[in-house]
């Protein structure tokens, strides 16, 4: 239960209840749907790019607390980042929640996102936290429009 409480810490609960950037970007550069068919998580991620830089990022949709908080914190984190920086954090973030890398070694790069490090204890929830990130990754790398995590 302690690990569960660590996972659902305040920052995640807050971002679930009061998500950041929970809006549409009308003039976006890419708009991607991320779906988790088994759970019914379903988000749209909006990205506005200018010269390889993410000048705005937002999301809309519905899902569990972990997936929604992850999408919220991702959109907050990516404001002003370059695509290259976003991709580096994508690798670190997915590595962290799969338990492949130690979050404490990358505290500077990950910042608040280390809140999700507890997920490595719950493999069944990994897909919840990666949903928004996978959608973003596909958006900026392939331009594919619907991303499914299963």
């Amino acid at each position: 239960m302690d690990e569960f409480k660590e996972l659902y810490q305040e920052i995640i609960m807050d971002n679930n209840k009061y998500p950041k950037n929970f809006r549409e970007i009308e003039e976006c550069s890419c708009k991607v749907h991320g779906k988790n068919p088994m759970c019914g998580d379903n988000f749209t991620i909006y990205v506005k790019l200018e010269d390889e830089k993410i000048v705005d990022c937002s999301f809309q949709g519905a899902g569990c607390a972990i997936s929604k908080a992850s999408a919220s914190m991702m959109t907050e984190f990516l404001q002003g980042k370059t695509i290259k920086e976003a991709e580096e954090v994508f690798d670190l973030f997915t590595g962290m929640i799969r338990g492949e890398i130690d979050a404490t070694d990358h505290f500077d790069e990950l910042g608040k996102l280390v809140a999700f490090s507890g997920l490595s204890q719950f493999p069944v929830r990994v897909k919840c936290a990666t949903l928004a990130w996978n959608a973003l990754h596909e958006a900026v790398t392939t331009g594919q429009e619907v991303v499914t995590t299963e």
Partner: protein
Amino acid sequence: MKIDVAKIKQDFPCLQNSELTYLDSASTTQRPLQVVERIKRFYCEQNANVHRAIYDLGAEATVAYEGVRKKVKEFINAPTVLNSERMPKNIIFTSGTTAAINLVAQCWGGSQLKPDDEIILTIMEHHSNIVPWQLIAAKTGAKLKFVTVDSNGALDLDHYRSLLSDKTKLVSCTHVSNVLGTVNPIKEIVQEAKAVGAITLVDGAQSVPHMPVNVTDLGCDFYAFSSHKLGGPTGVGVLYANPDIMQELPPYMGGGDMIEFVTTEGASWAELPSKFEAGTPNIAGVVGLGEAIDYLTSIGMENIHNYEQKLTEYTLEKLQEIPSIKIYGNAEKRAGVISFALEEVHAHDIAHFLSQKSVCTRAGHHCAQPLMNHFGVDSTTRISFYIYNDTSDIDRFIEALNEVRLFFT
């Protein structure tokens, strides 16, 4: 007869961990030790391939395997229609309910359906009773129609009647909803289908384990169910099939056991049921299914049904005391499957929290997305019972569910 659940629980090795509250039997049940031991005994003492073996061990394996076919026939009260080897022609072993439905869709649908023929399904079907028909409809040009449900999750029979016509070739319907717990009036549905000349298939995955089922009385042409939802092993299922229909159909898969004669020019088919059982079957699995049926029969299906009804009533009463709960499915006739949602807490967060309290529930769309869309939800949390559950399981679940509310709100 009063069911001694404490004694029954002792039979299930996975439930010996006293912390565990297993409430996911609609997905798969636990298996009693008797079934596990029977499979072990088959492999240790009786293992050989079935049919055509001349030696004693092979004969013994065949007797064990074919004995279960007769047992299944009696268990669901199928009419006695025997082939030349005195095997029931109307009991076909498959790998599960899904395989059984696909067999009918491919063999019957593939050979009989024409463009604009209609298949009637219901909105509460499991994907395994939707997708096989979509696949065959795409090939044949047949059309699918879905019977809707009312706000309690009961089938709208007036809507069903309005869909029936001389274009209707098949009605395929679940006996018990795996999401809502609704028990459908199968006999009535079958009678109305027959009146327009349609054949009928019943998905019995959620019914056969929990209540007496009499396919002769129901009058359907096909009835499918799985072993692993009634305490038997995974990878085994049964298709009860009207032999008059099956006789005329092309085979499902080609291979050993399903042929009569093979030449380089072609082949002729074995008689029923072997025609639809190509290849070496899941012999040990079928033997295990037989043991599971014996186990249930020793308790009595009527007793199991009555017991689960009482446990369901108890649970519903307790659940209704929880503020902000919404229960999906309140049909008059219902089984021990309950789906619910809590306001402002996602089903996955509920199920994950409950799992931390060793309460096993299921969250998601339960392989019934059209039904979830109908109710306008992405996912629900579901609990489902079996004979090894008692009120102490329910009390632990309710206590944990109350903690979920405190934690998330």
